[in-house]
């Protein structure tokens, strides 16, 4: 048996511009276009080619048992690559050789039907993901256990909380046993506890000698799961190899190419809750990307709420450049959650990291909004968007101090009782 699991050679995929925005023409337009084609041809007008390459001459090999992360900004071609590997869409050029059954998880709960019960959806979703009925029956108890939904098995999933929904959906997918598992950004939903459980499950999968291909905006998860990574940029491979090295390069590139520590986003009317601008400020409200350990770091977010979303919450991670999560914060951490049922309109959110919290070094901030009510709402998940550096100028060891924290601890000395 060859040790190659996936071989991709000169893979390219061309899309027509606007194909995703206005996917179908009307019959009338097509008729008119066909009828007027000879006239246009006589006039010497040629059809303009509004095309772009979502993937452009991509080649790589992945060995059996490797977990490989795919990183890159929006529109880099990550999802297109996964769709081709899962046979959902066909490439325009090039070829892929797959040695093993491919199971893909591009979205949690694909094919779940709200009217069907949890039990029924396990079977339906399992079949959609390519499991046989016998296989599902065999793993049924394990799936239910993993999802922690025993009591609600015979309730239609439309009555589920979004947490339960996601848990059940992931549980089914996690019990797929393909030789090659392709996963796209599915961990952005669900609570942290469960995300950890899922990541653990995927780690198991990789350790069982199966191949995992994993796309995420959360660099921490990639660092945790994948030894190797592929960095895609505008449809091309920028870099491929050791995850730590690639993440460092990737985060560096973000630094030079975007407005860190001040980034604005264009309007997206489809999003019910959208991040408009994110900045890092000091106490004088001026934008900064270099801080001293002795000053607070203020993360300032401007969000636009187009529609009130129940149980909306924000989540952020402060990560080192190698992806290590140093700190996590959730708007639900302290009750009440001020983002819950936020009224429509513009809002400013400020999160302050107190002075002497983090150690000197470089950090990125990963940001995500979500709702317990889950997939019914289109809520922005901006991903890794901000970056800053911290210098420790005042303490004795300064920047050479190792560790994750910069809190200065007092060494309190008092005479012992024994002296008496």
């Amino acid at each position, binding site marked *: *048996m060859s040790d190659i699991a996936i071989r991709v050679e000169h893979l390219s995929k061309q*899309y027509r511009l606007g*194909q995703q925005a206005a*996917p*179908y*023409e*009307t*019959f*009338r337009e*097509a008729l008119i276009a066909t009828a007027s084609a000879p006239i246009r041809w006589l006039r010497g007008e040629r059809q303009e080619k509004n095309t772009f390459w979502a993937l452009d001459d991509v080649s790589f090999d992945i060995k*059996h048992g490797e977990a490989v992360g795919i990183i890159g900004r929006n529109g880099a071609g990550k999802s297109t690559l996964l*769709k*081709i*590997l*899962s*046979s*959902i*869409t*066909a*490439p*325009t*050029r*090039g*070829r*892929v*050789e*797959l*040695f*093993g*059954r*491919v199971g*893909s998880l*591009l*979205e949690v709960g*694909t*094919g779940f*039907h709200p*009217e*069907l019960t949890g039990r*029924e959806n396990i*079977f*339906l979703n399992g*079949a*959609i*993901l*390519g499991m*046989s*009925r016998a296989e599902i029956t065999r793993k049924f108890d394990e799936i239910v256990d993993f999802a922690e939904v025993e009591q609600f098995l015979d309730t*239609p999933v439309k009555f589920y909380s979004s947490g339960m929904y996601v848990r059940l959906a992931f549980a089914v997918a996690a019990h797929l046993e393909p*030789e090659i598992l392709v996963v796209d950004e599915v961990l952005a939903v669900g609570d942290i506890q469960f995300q950890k459980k899922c990541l653990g499950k995927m780690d198991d999968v990789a350790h069982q*000698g199966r191949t995992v291909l994993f796309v995420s905006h959360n660099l921490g998860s990639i660092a945790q799961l994948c030894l190797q990574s592929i960095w895609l940029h505008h449809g091309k491979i920028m870099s491929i190899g050791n995850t730590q090295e690639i993440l460092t390069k990737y985060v560096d590139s973000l630094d030079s190419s975007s407005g860190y520590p001040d980034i604005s986003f264009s309007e997206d009317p489809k999003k019910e809750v959208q991040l408009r601008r994110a900045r890092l400020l000091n106490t004088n409200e001026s934008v900064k990307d270099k801080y001293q350990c002795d000053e607070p770091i203020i993360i300032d977010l401007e969000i636009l709420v187009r529609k009130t979303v129940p149980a909306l919450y924000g989540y952020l991670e402060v990560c080192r450049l190698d992806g290590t999560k140093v700190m996590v914060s959730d708007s639900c951490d302290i009750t009440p959650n001020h983002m819950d049922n936020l009224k429509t309109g513009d809002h400013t959110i400020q999160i302050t990291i107190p002075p002497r919290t983090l150690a000197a070094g470089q950090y990125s901030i990963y940001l995500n909004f979500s709702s317990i009510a889950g997939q019914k709402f289109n809520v922005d998940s901006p991903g890794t968007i901000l970056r800053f550096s911290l210098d420790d100028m005042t303490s004795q060891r300064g920047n050479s101090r190792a560790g994750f924290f910069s809190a200065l601890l007092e060494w309190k000395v008092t005479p012992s009782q024994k002296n008496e």
Partner: protein
Amino acid sequence: MNPSTITVVPHKIIKPPVGWQAINLREVWRFRELLYFFAWRDIKVRYRQTVLGAAWAILQPLFTMILFSVIFGSFAKLPSEGIPYPVFTYAALLPWQLFATALNSASNSLISNQNLISKVYFPRLIVPFSSILAGLVDFGIAFIVLLGLMAYYRLIPTLAVLALPLLLILAVATALAVGLWLSALNVRYRDIRYVVPFLTQFWMYATPVAYSVSIVPEKWRWLYSLNPMTGVVEGFRWALLGRASLDLPYILFSTAIVFILLVNGLFYFKRMEATFADLI
């Protein structure tokens, strides 16, 4: 990996599709459980949260029959070849409704499963196939009422009843042949969604559901009989009620048309398949 376990690793090559693709029915067969699950889902969901549930499968043809019996049977006094008009029209409504439902759901099947198509791989042919399966269950339920009607009017079917499965296959094949074309076109041109109800209505008047073939002028009979559903509907009357006016050559000819349409529908569908996820 443990050397004692020799596993056959499936090997797959993904390449850009060039020209017409072979129809991989073996793959569809491998996914037959999914076919069953989709049909099962459609049936379960259709009548969930309805008060009357599966009774709708009976009520629809029953009320249409009553309506037709009053208007065409009593008011217009259309000939029904000596058979009580209610049975005469109900025996035709059964295959007709099967066909119309199947055609409608097959045509819209890809669109109504667009979320799946853009996120998961499976042979896309499963989708229109399964949508037709769900219609067969309704047919089965409504068929029981027909047996009741026949018992009421003391009509005893002859051995011709054995031809029913063949006629059923012809009805389904016709729906599938047209449905495959329309479902694939529907992905690209959403106009199809509006064409389908119009098409089925038009088609129903071109099929002897409410009337007998005998009222069609002799010289147009040949053209009329090219409609495969004419064969199916008259075939049902013949198989169940023992009376009909149709010629076997016409049925065979329209069957051949259906077969041709079905085969090129399959190829067209297969050709468009690769672009479904991008266009839908």
